[in-house]
């Protein structure tokens, strides 16, 4: 069913304690990488997650896959809360949850051949002693557009784009229903990026995979996502379906982000006025009080430094966390 939810997170937080001290480590501060995030992804849907460095999007992706254990909150998959499961209990479920990495150079073991790399998930799940194993590897190599005689080559013999295809083939090996794509194209050349995006798109159509597509490239996210979430300092600022977000962004941060993306057209650029945010992206160690975005916000007004806006639906599935919208105001008990 297209509308069935495949994975849902509820109030996920991930805090990293910062300790100092020689013998007894004392907690001196907390890095709030993810600070209360909730969303749901449906079968076959792509949720784009955008934000700048330090916003926590990568940490969120890893928490989803239980590579980091969340500090609190739930990750609901297949009726179970993954956060409550032990590593052992998670193992069989891991077949359904995969990850595609940003760095095509680092994500492949340099000592494994291409076949080894693609087959690794199957070997880990003890599926490699069957004749179907080799067949599946050949099939996957084909699906991602690599030529079969490269199967015995080592990663350093492939180009960046080809390595990324290997990583994708590996992620597909166990027929997952959900893949977290962590900046899968930002390390690739521009002309290759489009190839990989098309590949991901095709695979989604063919196999009905749901993606969490993490990226800072807003144009690419618009192309591939069904819905988009904007993250800043560990919190969601705005969530909407793709067209709504790009055509009528509500949150000032979203507006600034979209405005900051230059268009490859000099005539358009000459006429465009862009929003320049002041200041730097603050550190998640000491997030600002109230609305975390307020120090840089060009629409800031009095309640912002003291009141934390809630992510609220203002109609049509478009959610925003900004005090300019009445639904965002915290409900008084």
């Amino acid at each position: 069913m297209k509308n069935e939810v495949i994975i849902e997170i509820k109030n996920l937080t991930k805090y990293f304690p910062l300790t100092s001290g020689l013998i007894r480590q004392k907690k001196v501060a907390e890095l709030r990488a993810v600070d209360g995030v909730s969303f749901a992804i449906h079968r076959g849907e792509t949720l784009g997650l955008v934000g700048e460095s330090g916003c926590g999007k990568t940490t969120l992706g890893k928490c989803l896959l239980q590579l980091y254990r969340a500090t609190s909150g739930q990750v609901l998959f297949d009726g179970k809360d993954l956060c409550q499961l032990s590593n052992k209990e998670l193992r069989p479920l891991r077949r359904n949850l995969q990850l595609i990495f940003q760095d095509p150079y680092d994500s492949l073991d340099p000592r494994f051949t291409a076949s080894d790399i693609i087959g690794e998930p199957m070997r880990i799940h003890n599926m490699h002693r069957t004749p179907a194993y080799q067949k599946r590897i050949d099939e996957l190599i084909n699906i991602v557009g690599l030529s079969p005689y490269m199967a015995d080559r080592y990663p350093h013999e492939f180009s960046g784009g080809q390595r990324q295809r290997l990583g994708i083939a590996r992620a597909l090996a166990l027929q997952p229903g959900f893949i977290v794509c962590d900046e899968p194209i930002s390390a690739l050349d521009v002309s290759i990026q489009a190839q990989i995006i098309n590949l991901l798109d095709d695979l989604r159509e063919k196999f009905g995979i749901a993606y969490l597509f993490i990226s800072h490239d807003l144009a690419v996210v618009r192309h591939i996502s069904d819905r988009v979430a904007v993250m800043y300092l560990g919190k969601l600022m705005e969530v909407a379906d793709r067209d709504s977000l790009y055509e009528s962004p509500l949150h000032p941060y979203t507006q600034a982000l979209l405005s900051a993306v230059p268009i490859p057209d000099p005539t358009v650029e000459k006429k465009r006025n862009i929003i320049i945010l002041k200041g730097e992206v603050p550190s998640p160690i000491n997030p600002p009080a109230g609305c975390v975005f307020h120090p840089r916000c060009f629409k800031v007004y009095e309640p912002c430094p003291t009141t934390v806006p809630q992510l609220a639906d203002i109609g049509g599935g478009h959610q925003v966390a900004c005090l300019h919208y009445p639904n965002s105001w915290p409900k008084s008990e």
Partner: protein
Amino acid sequence: MTVITDTVRPHRSLWGDAFIRLRRNRLAVTGGVIILLIALTTIIYPFFSRYDFASQDLNAILQSPSMKHFLGTDELGRDVFTRLIYGARTSLSVGIFTQLIVLGIGLPLGAISGAAGGRADNLIMRFVDVIYAFPDLLLIILLRAILGGSIYMIFLAIGLVSWVNVARLVRGQTLALKQRDFVTAARVFGGFGSYITTRHLLPNSLGPVIVAVTFNIPRAIFAEAALAYIGIGVKPPTPSWGAMIRDGNNVIFAAPHLVLFPAIAIGILMLSFTFLGDGLRDALDPRLRR
């Protein structure tokens, strides 16, 4: 979907690549060849030699090099060349077998320390620190006194002291490798600790470990010679270069060749391993691939 065709560079594995680079380093190749020659000689020579390392000829003591005795004789009339070759066997076997012990202890301890982290890591590393704090030669002497003088005990004594830097090295490598994405990938698929350690972490640590072991060998050789020199080395009559120097010291003015040849031999063997180690390090360094 377009099928990607590949460039036409020759297919080379990472080891093959490293080997080719090693071959270009003339010093390393020289070192390697010398080691091989010495090793071969120690194996083949016993079948051809006229003399045994222990056969004495009291009529021909302290002779200089001649046709009959290639490098002369010592104070008991034994052929120096023969004793040198057998001494080489001692040194080489010490060099190699101690490293087996080093790897046997250092690799797993380092890997566990790095992979497990936390308390295990802390414990193991403090233990390593303690051993490292002792001057190694003294510790070796102590162990030798406890364990006795058979060559196997010498292996053990030296090995038990030298594993420390390999353990540290493997731990460092493992810690760094744990952060790499391909390890994260394996975890995502459900790979657990021991699988990741054996299939990913250890193979990728091998490079620096090989280099470290190659540099360890001359130190082991020297340690054995030092032990023999102060009189607590391998029990005679098994020849050892260190013992030969010690004995030759007494008659150094009358027959300097008795000290000279073993000393040169130690030097050559140690240098050869060092050059080889240097070459290996450069060849295996992935950063120099450009």
